[in-house]
């Protein structure tokens, strides 16, 4: 019995590994676009001075979600605290995110935008956020 379970387990692992490395499956799958980053980008696009109650609710859901990464939680927290700009403490935390992510990644981009936020979103940053939303 134990042997059968072992074979079944190994079989399932093999299927999983084969599927993971099968690039063509990736190409036609729903890539589970980065929903959390998109949610925060969506809030930032229209942010003026500070987040509204509804926007804070959305950001709280990022903090509460088990699928959110620590970096995403730092960004969500920083947006919640925005009062015309990010707090000094949050700016420091965002800097750690920036330093520990690839410069061209969406997390890095979003962290930089939140860190430099001042009363509203600049045209350049708005375009970056729209692109994050567009491509997922």
């Amino acid at each position, binding site marked *: 019995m134990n042997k059968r379970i072992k074979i079944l387990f190994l079989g399932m692992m093999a299927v999983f590994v084969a599927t993971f*490395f*099968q*690039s*063509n*499956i*990736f*190409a*036609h*799958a*729903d*890539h589970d676009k*980065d929903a959390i980053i998109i949610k925060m980008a969506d809030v930032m696009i229209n942010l003026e001075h500070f987040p509204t109650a509804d926007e804070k609710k959305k950001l709280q859901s990022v903090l509460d979600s088990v699928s959110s990464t620590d970096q995403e939680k730092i960004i969500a927290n920083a947006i919640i605290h925005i009062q015309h700009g990010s707090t000094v403490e949050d700016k420091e935390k965002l800097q750690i995110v920036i330093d520990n992510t690839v410069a*061209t*990644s*969406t997390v890095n*981009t979003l962290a930089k935008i939140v860190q430099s936020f001042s009363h509203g979103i600049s045209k350049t940053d708005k*375009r*970056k956020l729209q*692109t*994050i939303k*567009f*491509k*997922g």
Partner: protein
Amino acid sequence: MYIRIISLIVLFISYAPNHVLGHGAVQRASELQDSEIRLFVADNMNGSVVVIDFPDGEVTHRVSTSPSIMILASNKDNKYIYAMRGRDTDEDLTSILSTGFDMEEKQFRKPHVIRTIKTDTPGGPRDSKMATVGGYDAILTEGEAEVVVIMSDDIDGYSELKTKRYKLAAPDHYHYLEGETYLYIGHLINGFVQVLDRSTGEEVKRIKGCPMLHGMTEDEESGRLIFSCARDVIVVGTLGADKAKLIARIPYPENTGRGCAAFLKGEGRIQWCYTEGIIPRLYRVDLSQEPYQFTTLSVESSIQQNSTDDGKYLMVLSKQGVLYLYHGRDGNLIKKIKVSEPFLGDWFEDVGKAILPDIESHNGIAYISLTHEGRIAEIDLEQGKVKRYIDIGGFPTRIVLLAKETLIEASN
């Protein structure tokens, strides 16, 4: 009394022409535009097709179609542009647009949507060209597993659209080409090439053993088709004794875990293929040399690739926004041209809608849709510099290029 009558007549005469003028003839203004190149660009911000005419480089029209364009393709005689939706909505539509080219005047008019039809998961075009069956435009419906042939030479908004349908083996993602007398339909998930007799629609055979079939090309000289599979590509004949036969299998050069996704025609009978995902490698095969074999070309992590019409240049757009020009025969690096800011983050395009940039070229000029910057770059390949940018806003993706000289040549 006499004076009153005269006054009334005068009043009537002076008043009457105003009404006549209201329904009179007006000067009709010509909408013809003497453009050399017309670009159709899918803007997936809202699903419109943006038209840019050159040499002016002006956005001349915006044609509204359904959002989430996945495929943009011209038909064989360049009268129509087909805009097919992706799968991120629950309604699959294909819009057929006029290209606006007036064959008599040899100039362009305004393009417009002729009609929009429901098509279950539409597909079939290759290299921005519609699939054909016996010279007619065809749409492969991946949900219903059919080849729908539009049997009308002229498509208008009010006539019945006559169609002929071929049943396919199973719903799947297809890679299709028409042979001399047979139709060859690669099935991705089912992993085989189904061969249909064009005249009867009957299945001739299935060429099996091509798991995860994705991407195909044609060697025009031999008529052979190349389908990419998970571990190798298969070569299928379409002419004479070769017809519907598996000619060869070409293993990928090394175990990269990535198969060919799409092919680019280089100089002579060279075919380049790029792999799924953004990896720094292209495969090369010379179809004039048997036995066929792949070699590799290391390239920067690229987000889009294409070759020029004559195969002279292989154009590789890197994620850093640099266009690398390689020789279309040997793959030697010729020059690098900075065209945009980097493409931030991951750019995985699934079947929801087109998101990737596109590259088209004509007579040494390349046009690149810079999705992330909302503009088109016009690049002089010989001089190695960007001539100008055309801001269109939105998120430009797929491009179809029509050149007047090509249209006139084709009509003669």
